[in-house]
């Protein structure tokens, strides 16, 4: 049962991601992204990362995706723009993809991955909080500087130069 649910979730994630890349209309791609985000949230649940799954839904679906859709709708003429996915060298590209996928598949099935048989955790928030405030305090703080830089950059690039 759990297996079936997992595969369903994985299929949903990958299939909708393919639609995101391949659909001609930007808005359809954005809507398909919704399912990708939900699928990833589902995968988090399978990893017992319930908090992360909730955050994924709140931030990516509730925040970023809505913002993307608003961005598309408010941008003049963007919905009618024909985004052509002209791909060249399909044959060579297909061979490369097949090779990479084959190698990755071989790797995934043959490698002795480190499997931890942990019991289901009572709560995950406390663990995440402890990690963020102890082991990964510096990366956590540094991320804020990254975001500051990104904000300044975004403001700079979108500002009208007089």
């Amino acid at each position: 049962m759990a297996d079936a649910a997992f595969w369903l979730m994985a299929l949903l994630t990958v299939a909708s991601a393919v639609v995101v890349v391949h659909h001609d209309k930007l808005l359809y791609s954005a809507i398909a992204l919704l399912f990708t985000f939900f699928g990833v949230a589902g995968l988090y649940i399978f990893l017992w990362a319930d908090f992360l799954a909730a955050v994924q839904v709140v931030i990516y679906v509730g925040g970023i995706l809505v913002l993307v859709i608003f961005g598309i709708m408010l941008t003049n003429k963007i919905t009618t723009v024909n985004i052509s996915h002209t791909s060249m060298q399909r044959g060579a590209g297909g061979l490369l993809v097949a090779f990479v996928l084959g190698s990755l598949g071989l790797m995934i099935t043959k490698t002795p991955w480190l499997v931890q048989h942990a019991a289901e955790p009572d709560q995950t928030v406390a663990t995440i909080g402890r990690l963020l405030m102890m082991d990964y305090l510096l990366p956590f703080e540094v991320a804020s500087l990254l975001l500051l830089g990104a904000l300044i950059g975004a403001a700079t690039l979108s500002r009208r130069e007089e």
Partner: protein
Amino acid sequence: MSNLHSLSHYWPELILTATILIGIIADLFYKPKDSGKTMYWIFGGLALTAFAVKLLSDSPAAILFMGTLAHDPFAWFFKMLIVLGTVIVLLMSGKSSELKNQSVGEYYVLIGIMVFGMFLMVSSIDMIMVYLAIEIVSLMSFILAGYLKNDKSSNEASLKYVIYGGFSSGIMLYGFSILFGLTGTTKLYEIGPALATLDGTANFAIMISAIFILAGFGYKISAVPFHFWTPDVYEGSPTPVTAYLSVAPKAAGFALLIRFFSAVFGTGENVAAGIIPVSSALPWPQILAILAVMTMTLGNLVAIQQESVKRMLAYSSIAHAGYMLMGLPMLSADGISAVMVYLVMYLFMNLGAFFIVMVVQAKMGGDSFSDFSGLGWEMPLLGVAMTLFMFSLTGIPPTAGFIGKYYLFAAVIQAGPSFYWLAFAGAVNSVISLYYYIRVIRQMYLEGERSETIQVPAFMTSLIILVLAIPTLVFGVYWAPIADWVSSSMVFAIPSM
């Protein structure tokens, strides 16, 4: 070391962060046309940062922030190098004609944040920190590359950079995730020993993760075949940014490459002790040697065909990444110190070459070879300096570039006959590069009209040229300080398990 105790070893970065914040606030008080004054704040902050790095270099090597950062002479070396490069680029930016009509307050702030990111790159020993550091540097570079908003090629540069950068980060992260899946830890110095306990069935996964991670690092140092973004980004970006991208992030990328690979795929022992013992799962020397030869050959062969000097220098910087990669396949302390010596020399000569291109661009409005016609007669200082930089980039004595190449080739040859072919390939490449470097000199002295009057560049321009040209010449004759500095920097902080 615990988080709180680490702070006392973290002064340079703290000062840098304060500098960035002060820069942002100071910029608010300037009128748009005065926004260039933000530079002085960043400049002062960087001077203080360098001073703090210097003061801390008396303290013993340590591991900071619960095993996230290494505080060791190897990191200090690169931090000083990065600050030096940044200071010179700040001076160059102040003279840039491309940036003159823009409000540039944010430009300097973004450079400050980028320095912070590079500081992290050279000292991270945790995969999450490595990723964040690379992202900081990349994001800031994307914005800086597209800073000329009204210039189509600058927009193109930024967009291409974003796409390639995002893609290669993704591949690198996949490589990280494989390592995590095999070992269950993000700490570089725990991954190495954990990999050593795995049996042969894991070798395939290790190889794939190594290649994926190499794609991410190779993108930062623009090694072939991860170089495709380089020419367009270097050509489209404002010239000071191009100069910066070709020097500082490249140095940080090499530092990260050396630390990451010796920690994860070596056995984590001190590199300074001699040969890095490498897990035999992978033919490391061969992979790195082939990468080096491909990088320098492609860079040189394509550089020959360029009509724009700026684009030629972009390909030449790919070739130089190839030369530097030559120091790594031996996996020896000699090879690594040769790379470090080369990076110091490369900093001066490459920034110098780009600065002259910038001055010519401002004067002639272009950067093609024909814009350099007769320059040597019209502006002798520029001509002589450019000749020096070109000789140095080729590696002709008595210039800094020769000493850098000498160290690299010596390290390759000392490693034994199995590497002679690598040295040979490097030598052939140096000869090829002579062609297009000399072409600039020929254009400056033998083409175009011989001007009777001499133009003297502005005081600041002359000063920057001298700051770059004198070391290029002096280090070609007297390089002992550099060699001493490098050999005293070959100490890595290794966490005790």
